[in-house]
């Protein structure tokens, strides 16, 4: 698998002249391969957002190398590399620039000097991918939060990025909006094999990823599949995170002496285990 992004021993501080201030990111290394979905989790202030800014060159590390498509990120190739990475931010109202849905998606394409015919084609394709092609001329104020975030995703997709970064993109949405956005990302991955990196507090969202990075105090505390990370159990709670609902309930049930075959991350697994271990005659 092709390497899309790699961070190699990255250290960064916001105040390089003050040696007593703790580094915001301390010796962090990880690699993202093509087609993967990586979730970065961690408490507020753990360095997640700093990493996002380092990845697309809004900040540069004091130590270490960041490579995008095997090429070291420098101030010279920054703009070209940014065009390979689509980013969707937290607040749906802060990233809508167009007067209509299709204008918004076309914005970045116009900035990049894409010819008109090609632009129209790409706008339609991108909006089809997020299932917003019925609302081409809708104005942003008539869209729900989930719809706005889907338009933001389409805006990123229109540039045909190699990597889609979601920086807490679902955290301000209502449950329905959140479900819409996650379903969109899942469908995109199935259809196009898009590489996704999501920074999130929502552990139910992190479960969907192939791999998780768990940040604590600027350092990478652990890396692994969701089941490996959630197996850390109480350590997660100590470091400001939580366990997914099914795991919390599994733990409580075991304490009460209910028989269960294993740890469960999803509700479906837990219901089935409860049924086969305790109720099926």
């Amino acid at each position, binding site marked *: 698998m092709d390497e899309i992004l790699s961070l190699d021993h990255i250290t960064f501080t916001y105040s390089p002249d003050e040696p007593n201030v703790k580094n915001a990111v301390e010796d962090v290394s990880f690699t993202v391969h093509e087609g993967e979905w990586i979730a970065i989790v961690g408490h507020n202030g753990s360095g997640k957002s700093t990493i996002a800014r380092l990845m697309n060159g809004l900040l540069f590390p004091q130590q270490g190398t960041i490579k995008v498509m095997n090429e070291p990120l420098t101030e010279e190739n920054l703009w070209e590399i940014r065009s390979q990475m689509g980013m969707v931010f937290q607040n749906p109202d802060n990233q809508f620039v167009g007067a209509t849905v299709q204008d918004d998606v076309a914005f970045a394409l116009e900035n990049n000097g894409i010819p008109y015919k090609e632009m129209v084609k790409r706008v339609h394709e991108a909006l089809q991918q997020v299932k917003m092609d019925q609302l081409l001329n809708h104005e942003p104020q008539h869209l729900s939060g989930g719809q706005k975030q889907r338009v933001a995703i389409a805006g990123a997709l229109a540039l045909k990025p190699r990597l889609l970064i979601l920086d807490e993109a679902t955290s301000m949405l209502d449950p329905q909006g959140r479900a819409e956005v996650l379903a969109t990302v899942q469908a995109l991955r199935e259809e196009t094999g898009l590489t996704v990196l999501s920074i999130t507090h929502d552990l139910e969202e992190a479960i969907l990823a192939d791999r998780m990075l768990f940040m604590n105090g600027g350092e990478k505390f652990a890396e692994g599949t969701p089941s490996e990370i959630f197996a850390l159990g109480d350590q997660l709670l100590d470091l400001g995170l939580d366990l997914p609902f099914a795991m919390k*309930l599994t733990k409580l*049930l075991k304490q009460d002496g209910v028989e269960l075959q294993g740890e469960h991350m999803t509700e479906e697994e837990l219901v089935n285990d409860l049924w086969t271990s305790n109720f099926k005659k």
Partner: protein
Amino acid sequence: MDIQLQKVSYAYAKGTPFEKRALFDVELAIPSGSYQAIIGHTGSGKSTILQHLNALLKPTEGALQIGDRTITAGKKAKDLKPVRQKVGIVFQFPEHQLFEETVLKDIIFGPMNFGVSEQEATKRAHKLIELVGLPHTILEKSPFDLSGGQMRRVAIAGVLAMEPEVIVLDEPTAGLDPRGRKEIMDLFLQLHKERNLTTILVTHSMEDAARYADRIAIMHEGKCVLTGSPEEIFGNAEKLATYRLEAPRIVRFQRELEAKIGRRLQTLCLTEEELARAITAAVREERAGQ
């Protein structure tokens, strides 16, 4: 302090071609000392109601009773200061409202505006900074040097410094990590109990509404369509679905399990602990029956 909305309607830009009705004949009684959650889909009118609660917006029809004050549509309401002192609103992302040079100055700004002496306001600030879980040394720092979670706590202390009787929370945990979320919600519950506050929580989180509130109101298309206890509200999945809402994860799980085992658990559970107990009881019954 009792709050009562009597057939409240509100239209933005009333009397212009851009007039847009946001509330329709909303009836809602919030008794003193209750913990009331207001839930609803985006655009259901939750935020418009919230702004009525301390008269930032005034009804275009109907009347609103806040304690002993009545605000009636079409009548001039004078001197709303006491209302605004008694009803403290913690807006979404309250840290965006910090503006002073130091945390202390920021916290005392509100109470001093309502005529509290600097000395008394400073005393309150010292007490509150501890209450929201921050060290006293932070009072001398610039609010802009703090982390997001700390800023949120400072902003909350600033609202509490006015010693409101009613506290209105608009998505108070948006953007916080799971621990921060639980700490803030537990803090509000503690305040609610200790100070005998009336607490109004406007939220997208069915989980928080189920766990913390004792009464829930559902807003839908500008109308208050359903009120009741969390059990009453979340026990009826079909009805919730018509308002484009979903029961909390816990309730959905309980229903799935009940469908699978072919019978109901004893009660509708609203916390993980309750649900674990109810499932354990069902498992014991099953064993005894075999």
